[in-house]
């Protein structure tokens, strides 16, 4: 890889002169930081609030919105190429281990300790620190936390005399009872990849299963997990027929359009359920905790996004200033109003906030007990999820039995651990 450099440089120099006006885009001014965010709802809040931050501090924040797959690919490309294309990245909770162990992100722990009072550390839900927290250090700062909740169409459930299910058995009965003609009891993500893998993990959780054993090695094909996948695959009979190719947006649309009566999903979707310009079921829905298998405990899944600093960023200080600002108590009501999700106790107990977002009370309760590790945040998670994304999809489309699918997934996952 060494010999070609001078020659390529010369050729590039010639080309650069020819195309000089085109290549001039890399020039940057000092007080500018680049933020790449996932295209979740909160991205709108980041985009709209960045100018306020610039007005107050003189630091310009360029916000680029990217879809999930693109963000992951580009972020890793940026980290391994050490190109510092962005100073700040939003970090999915499940990427925490990989990004922390590979040192992609700057360790924020010293700065958090230093500014502990200013950031009102204790006001943030303890469980929420799992967003970006890894083995005692904080590699990214919680930005928008999601609670996994059961959403249901209250109006139809009441009409049908179905109570919101408390147990897995009640859940199955309710799903079947609610399904009639073109109305479906439930909707789930079935698309190959992250969508079906992550939605199956909710079901794994409520059945009392886990992805790793006590030694931290994959345990994908345990009896409980197979039972959960069997249940998951069965329930697609009571979901809209296209659900096996659904991703989050399609699933939410099915619920919002009144086609499906229940779904398990992140609390960030609730806002749109209640918005009459987008939803046909506005005012008819409610949320509750997830049902639970006999003998298992009620579980409160935690997901969401943190915000971290690229370790190669030349603008660490400015980037930290932005993190502190966007997560500060002062900014939070505006952040929530523009599409953000809470991380602080003060946000979810403020009467003005609760008046606008009444479901935050339940979200807060969930955060108090939250489990941020049901999807293990380890370095190998993205590969495990990819493996499950294929095998779960094979099971729900009837191409493999749940047992065979999880056996295969387990074998492939063990290879990631050198077993």
């Amino acid at each position: 890889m060494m010999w070609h450099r001078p020659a390529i440089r010369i050729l590039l120099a010639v080309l650069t002169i020819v195309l000089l006006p085109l290549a001039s885009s890399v020039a940057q001014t000092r007080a500018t930081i680049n933020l790449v965010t996932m295209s979740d709802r909160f991205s709108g809040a980041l985009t709209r609030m960045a100018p306020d931050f610039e007005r107050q501090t003189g630091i310009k924040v360029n916000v680029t919105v990217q879809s999930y797959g693109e963000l992951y690919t580009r972020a890793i490309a940026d980290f391994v190429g050490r190109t510092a294309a962005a100073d700040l990245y939003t970090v999915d909770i499940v990427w925490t281990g990989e990004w922390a162990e590979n040192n992609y992100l700057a360790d924020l722990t010293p700065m958090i300790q230093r500014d502990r009072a200013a950031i009102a550390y204790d006001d943030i839900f303890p469980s929420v620190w799992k967003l970006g927290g890894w083995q005692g250090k904080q590699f990214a700062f919680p930005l928008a936390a999601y609670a996994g909740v059961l959403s249901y169409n209250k109006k139809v459930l009441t009409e049908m005399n179905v109570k919101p299910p408390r147990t897995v058995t009640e859940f199955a009965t309710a799903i079947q009872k609610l399904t009639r003609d073109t109305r479906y009891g439930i909707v789930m993500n079935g698309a190959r990849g992250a969508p079906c893998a992550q939605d199956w993990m909710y079901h794994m959780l409520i059945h009392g299963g886990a992805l790793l054993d006590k030694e931290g090695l994959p345990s994908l094909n345990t009896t409980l997990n197979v039972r959960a996948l069997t249940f998951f695959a069965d329930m697609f009979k009571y979901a809209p027929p296209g659900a096996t190719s659904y991703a989050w947006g399609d699933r939410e649309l099915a619920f919002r359009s009144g086609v499906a009566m229940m779904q398990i999903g992140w609390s960030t979707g609730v806002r749109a359920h209640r918005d009459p310009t987008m939803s046909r079921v506005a005012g008819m829905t409610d949320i509750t905790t997830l049902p639970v298998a006999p003998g298992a405990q009620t579980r409160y899944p935690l997901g969401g996004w943190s915000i971290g600093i690229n370790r190669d960023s030349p603008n660490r200080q400015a980037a930290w200033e932005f993190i502190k600002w966007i997560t500060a108590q002062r900014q939070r009501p505006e952040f929530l109003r523009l599409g953000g999700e809470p991380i602080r106790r003060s946000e979810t107990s403020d009467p003005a906030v609760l008046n606008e977002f009444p479901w935050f009370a339940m979200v807060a309760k969930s955060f108090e007990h939250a489990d941020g590790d049901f999807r293990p945040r380890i370095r190998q998670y993205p590969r495990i999820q990819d493996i499950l994304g294929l095998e779960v999809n094979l099971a729900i489309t009837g191409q493999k039995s749940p047992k065979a699918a999880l056996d295969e997934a387990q074998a492939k996952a063990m290879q990631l651990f050198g077993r």
Partner: protein
Amino acid sequence: MTAKRRQRAADAVTYLLLALILGFFLLPLVWLALTSIKPAREAFSIPPVWISKPILDNYRHVLDNVPVIAYLKNSLTIAAGTTLLSLALGVPAGYCLARTLSRAAGNVALLMLAIRMAPPVALLIPFYLVMREVGLLGTYLAVILLQSVFNTTFVTWMMRGYFLSLPADLELAALTDGCTRFGAFCRVALPLSVPGLATAAIFTFTMSWNDFLLPLLLTGRTTRTLTLGILETMSTYEIGWNNMAAIGVITVLPVLVLGYLLQPYYIRGLTLGAVRE
């Protein structure tokens, strides 16, 4: 009489088939255009609502939430850069291959075709590593260079076909008049080949504009193209088909209009290099 009747029947069948085919080819276009001016709630009614009161909210939403103008500029810059570079490299090469009847020229032509058939992803991976070494990731140049690899081979082959269709006598006359090869090319061949150049330019521009895979990895924050902007409207939780349709219309409109304005050249380009093998 029967022949005439049979002809009429054949015409009727042909028209019916053509109508079916046209319907198939126009349906997605019509859907795209209509969805872009429909309210979000109607985008997915069952049974489908084809005509509703047109609104421009989706376009407003897209313009407010996606930096469409900046992306337009980036797409334009990259497409223009690729077109210029591919023509600058490909036209002389095509001329050379058309006017040289040696085995070497034949091999060059084959080499160009071999590169044309390489899947972008095969070049993209090593190219990405090289661009990373020389610090050009995220610049317009990185995308332009790799797109030009594929488009230069295309321009070379197309222009070879075009120059072959021009009689060489005029250039020979110019040469005997004391012109250099270059002079003969500039004064005689080039002016005659303007339609061919136009064809090569539209094709290259369109291919570059429509590209998704190379910009996906090689562009940076300031150089993102419209094709990437489309996915930004598809937020995880709110699949905005109507917003996607709006930015989709904005994306396809320039190349669609270009294609129709320059239709004769476009159709000509389809056959160049094919008719004269």
